[in-house]
């Protein structure tokens, strides 16, 4: 286009492609390490091609950590958190977006203010609370505190405000829909893209969470993948091939989810930044 700043095309694409390769290289190198023996990697010059040791490395990972147990735990936490967040956040966001009731504005300002509190600040008392509930070491300690959040409510509320006409809500009400009926038949169907983004975002964040699980998951049988991975790294730090195989195994499900939903996810992520 004429109006844009022009860069010499070829040089530009070389730069963009180098950046792309740098972004993706760690994944390739992880694959190289995971398919070779550690001594192959220790060679100089190092081996840059894929090997055939993947199954041996996977076996070594399985011997050293309860990988599938951790994977199952992570999946349970991520799925439960995502489902609860989608339900609680959309219900609250829809209420804020389309109904009036005493105290609405005050409640909403409180909600916004909560986004300023860094979560790590409260880790000590939160651990005490979990101890009092008897949740230390249990997956509930990860799911329940994360099951509703201000960011999601704020984000969905904007979406509901812009995408659902008030007439639609009124019409549904006149047709005899109760509050939950309007929520189910009007709000949810129209917010699908927004819910998809929030869902993927929550799933990814939950899958990758590390600080809080590290503190609260005290039982070695109840680790999540990230904590299991770091313990693998700590105790077997020299066997890079095995540790990187573990890293690869922990990443694969997320990469698949991302590649399937990439477009929606990137679109959603940028909308938040641009609208503020």
């Amino acid at each position, binding site marked *: 286009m004429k*109006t844009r*700043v*022009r860069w010499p095309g070829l040089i*530009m694409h070389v*730069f*963009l492609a180098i950046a792309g390769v*740098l*972004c*993706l290289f*760690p994944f390739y*190198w992880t694959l190289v390490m995971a398919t070779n023996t550690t001594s192959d990697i220790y060679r100089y010059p*190092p081996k840059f091609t894929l090997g055939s040791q993947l199954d041996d490395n996977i076996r070594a990972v399985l011997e050293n950590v309860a990988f599938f147990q951790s994977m199952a735990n992570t999946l349970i936490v991520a799925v439960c958190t995502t489902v609860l967040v989608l339900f609680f*956040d959309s219900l609250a966001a829809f209420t*804020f977006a389309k109904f*009036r*009731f*005493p105290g609405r504005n005050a*409640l909403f300002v409180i909600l916004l203010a*909560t986004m300023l*509190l*860094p979560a*790590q*600040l*409260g*880790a*000590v*008392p939160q651990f*005490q*609370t979990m101890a009092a509930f008897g949740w230390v070491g249990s997956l509930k300690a990860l799911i*329940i*505190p994360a099951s*509703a959040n201000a960011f999601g409510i704020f984000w969905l509320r904007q979406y509901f*405000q812009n995408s659902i006409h008030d007439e639609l*809500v*009124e019409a*549904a009400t006149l047709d005899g829909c109760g*509050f939950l009926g309007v*929520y189910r038949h009007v709000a949810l169907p129209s917010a699908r893209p927004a819910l998809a983004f929030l869902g993927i975002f929550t799933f990814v964040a939950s899958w*990758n969470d*590390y600080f809080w699980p590290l503190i609260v998951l005290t039982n070695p049988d109840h680790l999540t993948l*990230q904590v299991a991975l*770091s313990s693998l*790294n*700590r105790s077997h730090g020299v066997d890079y091939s095995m*540790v*990187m195989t573990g*890293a690869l195994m922990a*990443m694969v499900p*997320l990469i698949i989810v*991302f*590649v399937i939903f990439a*477009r929606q*996810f*990137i679109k959603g*992520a*940028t*909308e938040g*930044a*641009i609208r*503020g």
Partner: protein
Amino acid sequence: MTLTATTPTRPAGTAKPGRRRGIASYWRFYLALSPFYLIFLVFGLYPVASTILLAFQKWDGLGPRKLVGLQNFGFLIEDSTFWLSLWNTVVLFAMSTVPTLVIAMTLAVMLHSAVRFKGVYRIAYFIPNITSLVAAAIFFAAIFSTNFGLINSGLRALGLPTEDWLRQPWGIKIAISTMIVWQWAGYNTIIYLAGLQAIPTEQYEAAKVDGAGPFRTFFQITLPQLRPVVLFTVIMSTIGGLQTFTEPQVMVGNAGGTGQSGMTVVMYFYNQAFFNNDYGYAGAIALSIFLLVLLFTAINWRLLGGRGRR
């Protein structure tokens, strides 16, 4: 961003005229909102309020709590490890944020004028951001490793001296910030790209008529227009940067590596609370992190002129 103004709604909840409603008749709405506020009270507000109290107490987690006034903060001021961890955090923040945002801006401007492969680039740039911090930290520790790491292999191949990266104060910082740049440059590129696409093209046409070159156009039109987006990325980077924990913890361990040069404030907080069981002191550290985040956010807001003060 307006907090109170709403669209001119005639809400369905009040659609029936001529009927006065008591507060109890809104119960559905309050019930719909209650999960968030309940969870926030129990797992958000209470812990934070409790931390603030804790900062003025001495407590080992078992015995009785003892009120000690400002003593914890007195210790904090004289604690060289605290100041070191603060210094490390700020240095890491600067070493990672500046390159991240410069690279992101450069890539975004290029990507904006690119016609082909835009979608492919965007996906490639975004992928590092969704990757597990732990897996990425293990990877970066591996390529920076002394004897067999890829970085040293490369240096050797070029005939340059190798470095003991993860056992050197600056090497540790370089490895950590390299990882942060890798994880966040692409994310910020995508955000900037979206910002660039929102700038009306008329302005560029006017600049062209005035005979402005590409650099003048960038600094006089593009950058000022992007200010709110830049502010957003800087604030997000600040909040993230001041809470850096996973990268150094996985790469060099809880002690922070050689000379504790990878020890960040959040790591120090974690150590004091969950290894030393010095909960009051940890509370004081947590409070200082919070104040720091507020301070830096305010400074950024000021420097970049906030919203609506173009």
